[in-house]
């Protein structure tokens, strides 16, 4: 579904290498110490970080040179996922129409997506008027409506409390299942990784390792992961 082929990213002195494949429908957690290059890796896949070498292939299509919106990828960032001056419905509507001229059917679709994440009746609220959890829900509603085969999550829920965060991860899994999408998400918390993913890509010392099944890798963590987890 996604293959990252002999990827090299250079940012000043920092170099990150990656070479792996991810199967369709997988839920992959990216784990590793801060500064290891997790965000850089997702940024490169999403089209925000230039590649020094290698290719990013999504569904057998080389997207290495494509702009972010033409990669069949939807992405949520750590912050700034919603425009504060637009209503939640408008923010979600952008996922369908970047020029925000929606047909009646599309407007209904937006309303359904908001209802699906528990935000029925919140269409005309602004992000500033709702809670952090509701903002996350709105962002997920947009991912749902974007219906891209690959979803990238760069810790969009890290500002939420533990209970709310696991609720959002649960909702993310549901949204991904509804959309039939593959999910790659960055996390700091091995528990989150165990709960919400099937595979783990471990990033350390400038290298993104190929994904391994969660049970597998947790049963016998490599040396660097052992150090990171503190076990």
């Amino acid at each position, binding site marked *: 579904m996604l293959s990252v082929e002999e990827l090299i990213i250079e940012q000043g002195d920092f170099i990150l290498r990656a070479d792996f494949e991810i199967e369709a429908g997988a839920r992959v957690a990216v784990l590793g110490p801060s500064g290891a290059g997790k965000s850089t890796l997702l940024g490169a896949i999403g089209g925000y970080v230039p590649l020094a070498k290698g290719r990013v292939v999504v569904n057998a299509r080389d997207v290495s040179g494509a*702009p*972010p*919106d033409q990669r069949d990828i939807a*992405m949520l960032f750590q912050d*700034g996922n919603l425009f504060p*001056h637009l209503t939640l419905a408008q923010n979600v509507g*952008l*996922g369908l129409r970047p020029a*925000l001229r929606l047909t009646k059917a599309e407007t209904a679709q937006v309303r359904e997506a908001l209802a699906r994440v528990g935000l029925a009746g919140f269409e005309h609220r602004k992000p500033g008027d709702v809670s952090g959890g509701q903002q996350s829900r709105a962002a997920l509603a947009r991912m749902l409506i974007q219906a891209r085969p690959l979803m990238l999550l760069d810790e969009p829920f890290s500002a939420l409390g533990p209970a709310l965060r696991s609720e959002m991860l649960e909702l993310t899994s549901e949204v991904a299942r509804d959309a039939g999408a593959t999910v790659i998400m960055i996390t700091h918390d091995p528990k989150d990784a165990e709960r919400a993913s099937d595979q783990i890509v471990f990033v350390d010392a400038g290298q993104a390792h190929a994904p391994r099944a969660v049970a597998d890798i947790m049963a016998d963590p490599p040396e660097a992961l052992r150090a990171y987890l503190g076990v």
Partner: protein
Amino acid sequence: MAQRAGAIGGPVASGAVFVLILAALVAVTSKADWPVRFDASDWAVLRFTVWQAVLSAVLSVAFAIPVARALARRRFAGRGALVTLLGAPFILPVIVAVLGILTVFGRAGWISQTLGNFGLPPISIYGLQGVVLAHVFFNMPLATRLILQGWQAIPAEQYRLVGQLGLPARTVFQTLEWPMLRQVVPGALALIFVICLTSFAVALTLGGGPRATTIELAIYQAFRFDFDLGRAAILSLLQLVVAGTAAALALWILPPLVLQSGLDRPLVRWDARGLTHRLLDAGWIGAAALFLLLPLGAVAVSGAIGLGQMPSSVWAATWTSTWVAVLSTVLLVVMALPVAAWLGQSAKGSAEAITLLGLAASPLMIGTGWFILIYPVANPQSFALPVTAMVNAMMALPFAVRILVPGMRQSFADYGRLSRALGVKGFAMWRIVLLPRIRPRLGFAAGLGAAMSVGDLGVVTLFADPEVATLPLQMYRLMGSYRTEAASGAALLLLALALGLFWVCDNWGRHAER
């Protein structure tokens, strides 16, 4: 790479401005007699231009330092209003201020009358002292704001430390304030010097004669009185060289033009608690407030009396000025938006360079050039108002860009990535992201541009025939024919128009959806 906002419009708009100025320059150069020779009177004009700019800059800053210090360390009722008032000269029409200054300081003004009651001779403010006085009136507030910014940039923690250690004012000055002033003052001096170099309306109304003529005024006189295009051309080139050189030298020390910021945020200070310090500060603040408010009050008082005396030509001129200002503001916004978006995505420093261009370009040089270009094909007088609107927009462009660029930079930093993620680009990028984000700044910049345009007495004096006039020009004509009461009425009207246009635009911006 996807096409970015302003990637085409920015260079196109900048290029258009550059071409408009260059065309004027070429036209002017073609009329100059080669080789260019300067006679004694040209040197006198140059000497006066530089000397009055030096005096204006030094006096403005010298006055501004104690006022800014007093404002920085005192809290009192009306402090916020006074700081706001310090921003007013930006939107105050020059000719209105000049009339106010004349009403207070002129031969028949309030002070001269008071002196007369004691048998003393009246004071005269025509010539160097008048030009400098008016320039200080306009630029002392600007300098105060710039220096106050410097004071407020000193971290509050440092003052807390000062209070805890009980440091005397002298030590505070040496350790905290002097290093800050050394950074801020050169920039303020340079900025005011460059602004005063190309001053026209002040010199036109308060200067004149062989001893008090600026280059800009000399261009006007050569053009209007002698219709000597050759001499106007030579003077224009001189102006370009002088202002351009000064602006280029000043570029590295020009301060950032923060026109709206939290300057009204008072700070708790524990130093300078003595009675002497407090009285001194109160004295400086009172003097500054009086210096700014007296002429404005004079305009309001004599204007209210003069409103009934205004000839109907004033109303026609009011209408003309309004649509010239609206046209000018539209042109300004159309140029400023793409340029600001473009510069907002490029390296810092580019916005400073464009400000430099605007400060160095002389409106009368551009006006002269376009007169020369239009003259062979059409009657330039019929283009007086469109050319005025265009030149006004170009003169306000550097300020507008300076105001918009930080907002653009912030919008791209905060929402550029999200926009790319969603494929929001092109016109949708403007409509959905950029315009809503920068609306407060856009309203402020447009208001400033509209007020500057409506109050401008510059290029229109070159072109206009007796039938057509903008409100400032009509007011100037009334003053010239000693119809002071009618002129005062027109001044009040002009003041209301400038403030009104500013308010409409700024208020639109403030109602941004957040």
